[in-house]
């Protein structure tokens, strides 16, 4: 039994003389997870990992969630990680189990999310033999992991797991995959719970250079039109409080990326909301007109910058980032500060003074008044933006909100009033449909104290909807709001604007299931809303439910478009603000 083995281990540690207990690879695996503080695993069993599942059966220290597809499990672990700040853990079998995690791994990689993915592998002597359920998962995932390991000897297993967790959470976080052959899981080795992680080639810098920080102080002092551009790095480094203090001390407006939403409260006067392709008019104009752009934990993604040559072209640029490779990758930086955002901001704050930005802030205030986010109502028909606003109100802006990819994602980013970090979960880099619902489920598991809402489209939801079974089985009270326009909305919007309304394969209306019945057939609760009265009623009931997942199928205006919009190839100040009349 595992508990006995564990007791022995600790004894051996204390006396130092007793022989170490011999454990199987599967037992070492579970012990190592416990030692890492892992409480939650999302997984799916299969041939080569049965020994691990047998060990899990006997332990009470780890909550394993049996998902319905490994992709959903990986997104759930990702949502868990984003919501809690702890690494998400996935367990899958070899071959198809492993390959099903690939989209989830790529999603986490693009957004720098700490995951540790454990895959079973065929026995060592069969590797390379085209064995049953064999896939070279290390080879397949090499470009989408921060690092990966194949464990060839059971005596290396415990150290490898420690290294994997260390690499996943430190520096610029990311997914790490550990591939463990079946025979390694069955072999025995002495287990020593004492670990030291030694990695000669891996020493992420956390503290920023003092000299660079003092140069930044000087540049900030001279700026009259500063803008702070904050990204997901603020979340990873848990630096939302420092960001607030920094922005308020400077009196500098703050725009965030999609992944930075929640890093700065949107109710604050200095908030500009999101920038970029579907950012606010005033955020994009402020960046374009600024004389100093302070990028914090952001990577100048093409959806943010639009046409590179015209991005903030009058601004000096300071870039604070833990990843030296992010600096001057897309946009030339005048002053890089390599380090952890929290450290660097803490070092900066005591030295900076308020900018002379009064007239700049007045200008921005006028832009906000003249070009707010807006939409037109259409009789009793629900507008998607209105649904997001209603969700924002009913959750008081305090929920953890996960989205898929597309129109609903942009409306969520625009109209949900985020105020807290680790509240907005979305696949920004990879743009993964099917991410939102399982991610919200993972967040609900990790943060049972908060409300978790998935805002999804009718297209994306169907990519991972089978996780309803998981949510019902484990009584995860995740909320699902479908903005149902019966289209792949963003595809349709592009087809309308750039392909003369030829809606090629983007209309789902005739083939969509009845989502309310779908929820019910899984044992979840479903409501449908066609107008605002029905929506309010449905959302009220949704919030009241404490145990089961609730799905609200909001039937929205079919051909609503997301604005503002920066067309592909344009500068971010060249926005389309509304439909052509």
């Amino acid at each position, binding site marked *: 039994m595992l508990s006995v083995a564990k007791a022995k281990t600790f004894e051996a540690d204390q006396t130092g003389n007793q022989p170490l207990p011999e454990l199987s690879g599967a037992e070492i695996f579970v012990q190592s997870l416990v030692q890492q503080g892992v409480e939650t695993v999302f997984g799916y069993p299969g041939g080569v990992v049965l020994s691990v599942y047998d060990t899990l059966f006997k332990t009470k220290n780890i909550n394993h969630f049996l998902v319905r597809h490994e992709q959903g499990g990986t997104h759930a672990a990702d949502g868990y990680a984003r919501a809690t700040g702890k690494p998400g853990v996935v367990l899958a079998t070899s071959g198809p189990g492993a390959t099903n995690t690939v989209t989830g791994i790529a999603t986490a990689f693009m957004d720098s999310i700490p995951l540790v993915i454990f895959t079973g592998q065929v026995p060592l002597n069969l590797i390379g033999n085209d064995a049953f359920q064999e896939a070279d998962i*290390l*080879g397949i995932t*090499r*470009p989408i992991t*921060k*690092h990966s390991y*194949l464990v060839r000897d059971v005596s290396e297993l415990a150290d490898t797991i420690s290294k994997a967790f260390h*690499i996943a959470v430190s520096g610029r976080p990311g997914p790490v995959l550990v591939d463990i052959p079946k025979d390694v899981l069955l072999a025995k080795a002495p287990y020593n719970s004492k670990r030291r992680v030694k*990695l*000669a*080639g*891996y020493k992420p810098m956390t503290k920023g250079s003092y000299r660079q920080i003092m140069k930044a102080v000087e540049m900030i002092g001279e700026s009259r039109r500063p803008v702070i551009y904050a990204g997901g790095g603020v979340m990873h480094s848990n630096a939302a409080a420092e960001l607030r203090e920094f922005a308020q001390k400077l009196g500098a407006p703050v725009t965030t990326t999609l992944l930075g939403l929640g890093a700065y409260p949107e109710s604050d006067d200095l908030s500009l909301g999101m920038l970029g392709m579907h950012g606010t008019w005033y955020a994009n104009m402020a960046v374009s007109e600024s004389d100093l752009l302070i990028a914090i934990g952001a990577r100048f993604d093409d959806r943010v910058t639009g046409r590179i040559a015209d991005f903030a072209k009058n601004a000096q640029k300071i870039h604070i980032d833990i*990843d*030296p*490779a992010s*600096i*001057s*990758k897309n946009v030339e930086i005048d002053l890089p500060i390599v380090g952890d955002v929290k450290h660097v901001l803490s070092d900066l704050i005591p030295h900076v003074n308020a900018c002379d930005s009064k007239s700049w802030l007045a200008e921005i205030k006028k832009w906000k008044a003249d070009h707010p986010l807006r939409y037109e109502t259409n009789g009793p028909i629900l507008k998607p933006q209105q649904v997001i606003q209603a969700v924002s109100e009913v959750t008081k802006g305090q929920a953890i909100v996960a989205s898929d990819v597309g129109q609903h994602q942009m409306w969520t980013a625009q109209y949900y009033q985020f105020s807290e970090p680790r509240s907005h979960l979305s696949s920004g880099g990879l743009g993964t449909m099917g991410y939102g619902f399982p991610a919200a489920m993972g967040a609900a598991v990790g943060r049972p104290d908060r409300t978790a809402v998935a805002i999804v489209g009718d297209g994306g939801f169907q990519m991972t909807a089978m996780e309803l079974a998981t949510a019902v089985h484990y009584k995860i009270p995740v909320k699902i709001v479908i903005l149902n326009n019966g289209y792949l909305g963003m595809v349709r919007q592009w087809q309308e604007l750039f392909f003369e309304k030829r809606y090629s394969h983007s209309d789902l209306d005739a083939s969509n299931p009845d989502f309310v019945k779908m929820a019910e057939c899984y044992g979840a609760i479903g409501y449908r809303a066609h107008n605002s009265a029905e929506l309010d009623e449905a959302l009220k009931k949704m919030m009241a439910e404490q145990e089961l997942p609730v799905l609200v199928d909001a039937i929205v205006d079919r051909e609503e478009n997301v604005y503002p919009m920066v067309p592909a190839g344009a500068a971010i100040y060249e926005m389309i603000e509304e439909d052509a009349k």
Partner: protein
Amino acid sequence: MKHTISLLVENKSDALQRIAGLFSGRGFNIDTISVGRAEDPSHVRMTIVTHGEDRIIEQITKQLHKLIDVVKVVDLTDMSFVNRELALIKVSAAEDVRAEILQIVEVFRGKIIDISPKTLTVEATGSEDKVDAIISMLRPYGLKEVARTGRVALKREFQGET
């Protein structure tokens, strides 16, 4: 512009694939790559010759540095460094031209390391320019096979005055 990058890498079975994959995945160029055990057998030293604008080269060195198994990245290009390439050249060598070929090999301080009735195999060492030169001198006689190592390089210990 051509750059010579020297890497010290942990001697892991898939380290080379990580590095080669980084180049192909990000669209960087590899002109030559040479790999062999370093002074400490737990490490390998790789010499990569690549080309691109300064911004790309900067990305290459930074991205290489990010790989967990890469211990050290040095762009030798702006330093004083020694470099060599080894080539084995199998050239057609009938009786009547054999003397000419031997002369060429001597000029380039090459060595004949294999002889058959119709061919000579030449070992040539030096800078790529020199190896290119001897190959182009031998080409008219009929090159059968050529194997080149690509550049190996080390920083010069004495960097001179700066």
